[in-house]
């Protein structure tokens, strides 16, 4: 028990469990907020580009790939859908998804000393980092939407769908990131396996290809993967009728819940075994 939580525990004992939960939630919000500020400060501190890099990195990677595809005209051309924009909006969420999961073990390891403060839980450290990544990708996505709107003269089809897709993607990546971090903390072999697994999962992710252009039997297989639904959602939000899409929000939500509960449980299981 640290100073505040002890005081608050005494105060909250009377009003009952609900008040305690609310207080705990407020504490956690405060801690995550402080961690986000700290993360931003340290990124600014290392070099001037530090913070900008958060936005530039995904934008540059997605942009480079999109230019490549456009220049070489790879992929089936879909009427009314630019390959450049298609690749940009497909690869950017995928890039964030991959980055969150593959960086989660490192985030945990490099921030172990934060756990000296009892206020800070393992989850808060990961949550703060992921929230920043999420803010970055939404900002970059907004820039792309505006850019395509202004220069390409094509407004996005459905912004709420686009936004929901990105949030679901973040939540899915967050849950998987928690599992990856817990796995890496308990076994070195598991840590080594994370990267290859992420790369091998690219063809199954449905990220870089529209499910509409696939053979229905292959499409059925890919639709087992909630990630494929999410990429379809993002593209639906962007292209709408110009590109038929296949997704089911309920199915994705179910998997988001499963993955997050498993992630939390894994983190909780691994916490007592951490050595400092």
């Amino acid at each position, binding site marked *: 028990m640290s*100073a505040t939580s002890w005081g608050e525990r005494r105060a909250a004992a009377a009003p009952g469990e609900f008040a305690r939960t609310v207080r705990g939630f407020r504490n956690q919000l405060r801690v995550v907020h402080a961690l986000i500020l700290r993360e931003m400060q340290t990124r600014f501190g290392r070099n001037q580009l530090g913070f900008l890099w958060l936005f530039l990195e995904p934008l540059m990677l997605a942009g480079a790939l999109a230019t490549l595809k456009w220049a070489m005209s790879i992929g089936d051309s879909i009427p009314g859908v630019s390959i450049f924009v298609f690749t940009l909006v497909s690869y950017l969420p995928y890039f964030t998804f991959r980055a969150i999961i593959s960086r989660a073990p490192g985030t945990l390891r490099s921030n172990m000393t934060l756990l*000296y403060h009892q206020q800070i839980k393992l989850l808060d450290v990961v949550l703060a980092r992921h929230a920043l990544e999420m803010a970055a990708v939404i900002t970059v996505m907004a820039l792309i939407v505006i850019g395509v709107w202004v220069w390409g003269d094509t407004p996005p089809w459905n912004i709420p769908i686009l936004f929901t897709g990105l949030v679901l993607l973040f939540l899915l990546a967050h849950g998987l990131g928690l599992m990856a971090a817990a796995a890496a903390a308990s076994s070195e072999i598991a840590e080594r396996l994370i990267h290859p697994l992420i790369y091998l999962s690219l063809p199954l992710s449905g990220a870089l290809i529209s499910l509409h252009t696939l053979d229905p039997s292959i499409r059925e297989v890919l639709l087992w993967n909630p990630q494929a639904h999410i990429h379809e959602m993002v593209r639906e939000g962007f292209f709408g009728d110009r590109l038929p899409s296949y997704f089911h929000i309920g199915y994705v939500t179910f998997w988001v819940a499963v993955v997050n509960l498993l992630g939390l449980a894994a983190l909780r299981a691994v916490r007592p075994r951490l050595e400092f």
Partner: protein
Amino acid sequence: MIILDGVSKYYRMRGRAQRWILRDTTAVIRPGDRLGILGRNGAGKSTLMRMLGGVEYPNAGRIERRMSVSWPLAHGIGVHGALSGADNARFIARIYGRPVEEMVDAVNEFAELGGYMDMPVHTYSAGMMSRLQLGLSLAMDFDCYLIDEATSVGDQRFIERTQHRLETRLRSRALIMVSHHSSHIRTFCRTAAILHDGILTFFEDLDEAIATYEAL
């Protein structure tokens, strides 16, 4: 009160060997105790401090904290090297829900870092680092402070300031301290315990404890 109830802790070494830190230890630390912990290098003093602070978990048994306990103060721990002393103070104020600028002033007042308060912590000397860390911890209001060698690199003036603070404003607070300097143990503590081969032996008399430790 901190209650250790049948606490065991070991680290796995190469092969099947185990290094014992604590074996089935039961002990109580009461409010206002001033306890020095003595032990050879590698005996597990820092691990014990981390367990008392709730950072690391025992393999068996239970540690119950019935009073607020500070984070274990050890060199370079609990602060971020790339951030300034002031920013570190702000961060700690935020996570513990304290007024931010008040905390910065309190830390600076105690640690006397002057202009270094706005410099990245990795530019600090060892002595400045320990002043900042003690400043951060003592600015907070804990029932029990855990100090792991953090006083070891402080100069005489700073030791006196720390002692003064612990004798006045923090008079009723408990203190658990690890130090290789017998003189610091004598300055800050009233009782002591020796950690050796996983056994924690308590001594009511400081001189007896120090003599036993030196004979190990």
